[in-house]
């Protein structure tokens, strides 16, 4: 079973179709699968539902798929950085399912773990709980949330081997392992493709069973959203 591909385009070949659901890793612009996003844009696939904590920024990250009009719906927790997103949403051109960040993370994990639904205190008594079942445990109201699965996941890792075992670097991990497990086809882009056995088996973040295709990106932009510094001295 060869999981290795030479490029994002090759890795996504046959995996894209209109109106599909794609889960994309990343938090802000940190740890986003930038090569896959570019390839999705170039594929022209449309009507996408995208599950991603954020929606990129104007001109980078998932922002490019919003600008090209390929996205029908976003399932996200925070989109404050993207002005074009706000325009689309407020003018009714983009459907948005706001999901609190922890609920989004847990829904993806549940989807990948065969859990169809779970209860959380989060959103109880708020507008986001409207239309959802609530139930009392230990005297407090909880909201039932459904597991979330995608047709395809695109994730970005630091290093990966030919079996699809992945490790992430620092806070670039975020939603990537959750997305990887929540789809039947997961495409992983890595900064470095290493030989099988080069990663320490006790410290693999995403076991290869969750990754179907993998490629080494040729250059990562890795933009910084908020360059915040302290002064020397």
């Amino acid at each position, binding site marked *: 079973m060869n999981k290795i591909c030479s490029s994002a385009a090759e890795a996504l070949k046959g995996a894209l179709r209109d109106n599909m659901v794609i889960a994309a890793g990343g*938090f*802000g*612009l*940190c*740890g986003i699968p930038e090569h896959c996003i570019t390839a999705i844009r170039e594929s022209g696939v449309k009507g996408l539902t995208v599950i991603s*904590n954020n929606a990129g920024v104007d001109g980078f990250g998932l922002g490019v798929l919003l600008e090209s009009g390929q996205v029908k719906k976003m399932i*996200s*927790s*925070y*989109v*404050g*950085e993207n002005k074009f*997103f*706000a325009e689309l*949403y*407020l003018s009714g051109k983009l459907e*948005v399912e*706001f999901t*609190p*960040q*922890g*609920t*989004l*993370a*847990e829904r*993806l*994990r549940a989807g990948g773990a065969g859990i169809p639904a779970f209860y*959380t*205190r*989060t*959103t*109880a*008594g*708020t*507008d*986001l709980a409207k239309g959802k079942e609530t139930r009392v445990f230990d005297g407090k109201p909880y909201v039932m949330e459904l597991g979330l699965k995608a047709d395809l996941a695109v994730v970005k890792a*630091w290093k990966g081997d030919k079996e699809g075992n992945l490790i*992430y*670097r*620092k*806070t*670039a*991990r*975020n*939603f*990537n*392992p*959750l997305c990887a497990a929540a789809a039947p086809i997961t495409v992983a882009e890595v900064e470095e493709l290493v030989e099988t056995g080069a990663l320490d088996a006790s410290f693999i*973040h995403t076991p290869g069973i969750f990754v179907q295709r993998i490629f080494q990106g040729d250059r990562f932009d*890795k*933009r*910084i*959203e*908020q*360059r*915040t*510094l*302290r*002064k*020397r001295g």
Partner: protein
Amino acid sequence: MAWTRDQMVARAALELQDGFYVNLGIGIPTLVSNHIPPSMDVTLQSENGMLGVGPFPFEGEEDPDLINAGKQTVTALPRTSYFDSATSFAMIRGGHIDLAILGGMQVAENGDLANWLVPGKMVKGPGGAMDLVVGVKRVVVVMEQMMKEESKLVRRCTLPLTGQGCVHRLITDLGVIDIGNGGFMLKELAEGVTVEQMKKSTAADLKIGL
């Protein structure tokens, strides 16, 4: 007279205790980290997947793979650990964080908090705030008391809620107000602020517990 933003933040830092695990919200609450006494052992959690958040980097040391929940570049400490978002919110939702300091747009006398949406105008999303307010042991809100001419301390929130009955304490530019069974309770006044001024700046009953 009232507290400056820096004074508000310094007052908020007095909420910290030795050994606490703390989540600081985006914006003003993030500044609380500048006021942690060096002798105090406080570990900052950032919900994007980091425990032990260090200071901002020096120029040239910023790392795109190392940011906080506000997407700002930060640094690591010897104690730091990284984890995925599900584990991060297991910490938050599971009650493992001692204190969250968050911003607010409205706080009601029943402890309700609104800070994520102005219908038809602002669209940002709840981020991690809705999980933080239900999961963290103690929630302190830091915000200006007035928005233009209107008090942000209200009987009932008119903006969409972030959480119900979740706020324990409010720190504003005018003082410190607790929320208990009976509603707002004034605990401290900022320098130069009178009880009368505080009452005028609160659109609900205010008990005096100075």
